[in-house]
């Protein structure tokens, strides 16, 4: 089954759109999300024989995608320590279509503008339901850093949402 290309194609067509949504949240851009998705599907096809049926298959694939994203984050951030960001210093989002209501695409763009450390912690906490201790273990950071990053991420997003609402209102 692992080497059946037709089966792999069917699996890809079935889960790729949903998993692309997951990867887009963890990535800074669409290109980066596609790289994570590709790496994730390679792992899925390689280890599909190890899926024992415990839990949903979609959940298993999603976990692989998240781990692929974390692996990428670890590698990229390994040269720099995680630093706290002053959320007051950020400018308005340039590429957001502020003339329309805040839909999923716009919210996704907002998440993608978060610095990597904030974005990963926000995703793990909000979407994956991780605790700060688990986030700390997964990313190799302290629990306090995880809490701080989440708090800063929320403040950053709130500020951006307020700006957007004001712009829409003025419009």
């Amino acid at each position: 089954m692992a080497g059946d290309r037709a089966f792999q194609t069917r699996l890809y067509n079935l889960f790729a759109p949903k998993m692309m949504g997951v990867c887009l949240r963890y990535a800074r851009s669409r290109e980066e999300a596609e790289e994570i998705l590709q790496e994730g599907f390679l792992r899925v096809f390689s280890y599909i024989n190890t899926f024992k049926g415990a839990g949903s298959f979609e959940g298993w694939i999603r976990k692989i995608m998240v781990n692929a994203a974390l692996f990428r984050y670890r590698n990229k951030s390994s040269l720099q320590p995680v630093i706290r960001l002053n959320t007051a210093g950020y400018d308005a989002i340039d590429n957001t279509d502020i003339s329309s209501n805040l839909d999923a695409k716009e919210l996704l763009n907002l998440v993608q503008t978060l610095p990597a450390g904030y974005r990963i912690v926000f995703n793990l906490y909000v979407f994956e339901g991780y605790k700060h201790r688990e986030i700390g273990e997964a990313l190799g950071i302290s629990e306090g850093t995880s809490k701080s990053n989440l708090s800063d991420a929320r403040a950053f997003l709130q500020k951006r949402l307020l700006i957007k609402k004001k712009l829409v209102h003025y419009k």
Partner: protein
Amino acid sequence: MSKDLHDIDDLFSSTLEEYKEMPSPALKERLDAALDKQEAEKYKKRFLIWKRSALLLLLLLAGFVLYESGIIKKDSGNYILNRSGSGTDQSPVNKKEMINNNSAGNTSQIDINTNNPDFKNENIPVSPNQPGNITSGASSNTGNFNSYHPTKNPADQQLNWYSVKQDPLTSVIISKSTKKENEDTDYGNFFQSNKNDRPVIDKRINISDLTNLLTNNILSPQNISVSNSPLKNGSNEGSRKKINSPFRPFWMLSPFVSYDQAGYQLDSDEPSAVNSIKFREANEPSFSIGLLLGRQLTQRFSLQSGIVYRNTVIGMKPQKTYAFVDPTGDVAYKYITSSGYAFFKPGFGPSPNVGDSLTTAEAKHTLENISVPLMAKYTIVNKKISVTPGAGIEANFITKKNLEVDIEDPFNREIVVIRKLNGTKPFYLSFIAEADIKYTINKKVAVNIRPVYRQAVSPITKNNVVETFPRSFGIGAGVTIKLR
């Protein structure tokens, strides 16, 4: 504010949880290409063991062929009567008995009984000091030598024996030269075969008579006297022709110990990484010890293999290390060496975070490996001294990778011993060249000095910042014991 923040969580969670977006079609193509590459790598790995096995078999086959060629040469040098009848038995014992010392140099006679059904070997010994008869039964009218009459008298084995070699046209009688005769030229050299085995052709024996006797029908037993005159040593140099003795291949055992000056060649796309490693690493004197087994196939050529233990030590200058996430998911400082990298955490201080740095003091890196060389060698002999240059390949198995890192801060000092290096291959191949200089003590033992150069032809690293090809120059000393 807090409620707003949690509202943000809900807003994003509810909106993006089920968000779907189709990836670009190019991604599927890239994925297929990556899967193809993965399968190709699996395919390559699957045949790696076969490739290695094939290489090993090839080496063994080469050794076997060389060995066999030596055996063939040895056989061709035996002076035995060629087969002209239907006899097939050529006992090696009989072949050896065909040639014995001619210490007395006395008259020889031939005793051949072709009528004896027990004698089925075509080799014909010629025993001196015995009534030499050539007899033929009535039923034997072909003139071929199909019977061999070994002398049972032990005294004969101390005396002269002759063997007869027959070709389609004529027969020759060969006698052996005496040991005493050769003592003046025998240096007792390690590589020369025993001079006692050297045969000479004694032309004083009447070959035509013997040929006639052996090839014509002999209907009744009759005594044939080959020669009645005494054959004195050294009295017939003018008519005696020396024939090259058959070389008998032999084994050699050579234990040795060697002082090595090791080094390496570094390859990398990052020149800074190469320079950095070269700056902070310095090879210290190393050593190797081994037991080599050689097979002298001819007087000149030999094959040598064995087992060698090698210990290489590399000293490290202080360096700054950074914290990374290691393969287990833990955060630790990464220590990079020319032969791999290791993750470590000091026992003191807080656990590192990604990107933290730590400056280590000096460190010592030890590599141990077991090597199996296979070399072809050529011997140049000058009396008691011989020089044997050789070249070949060496299979190296890294058995131990040890890193001792000295870490200290104003309050603590600790030596961290790391026994696991990442990015190091367990096996690599080397080219090896050496010149074995031997001084022969006696026919069995020689002492030797052995300068050796080794250069890896495959790297010892994998997924490291540099590809490392170890090399070393060593001076070894040992003894070589000739085995039979």
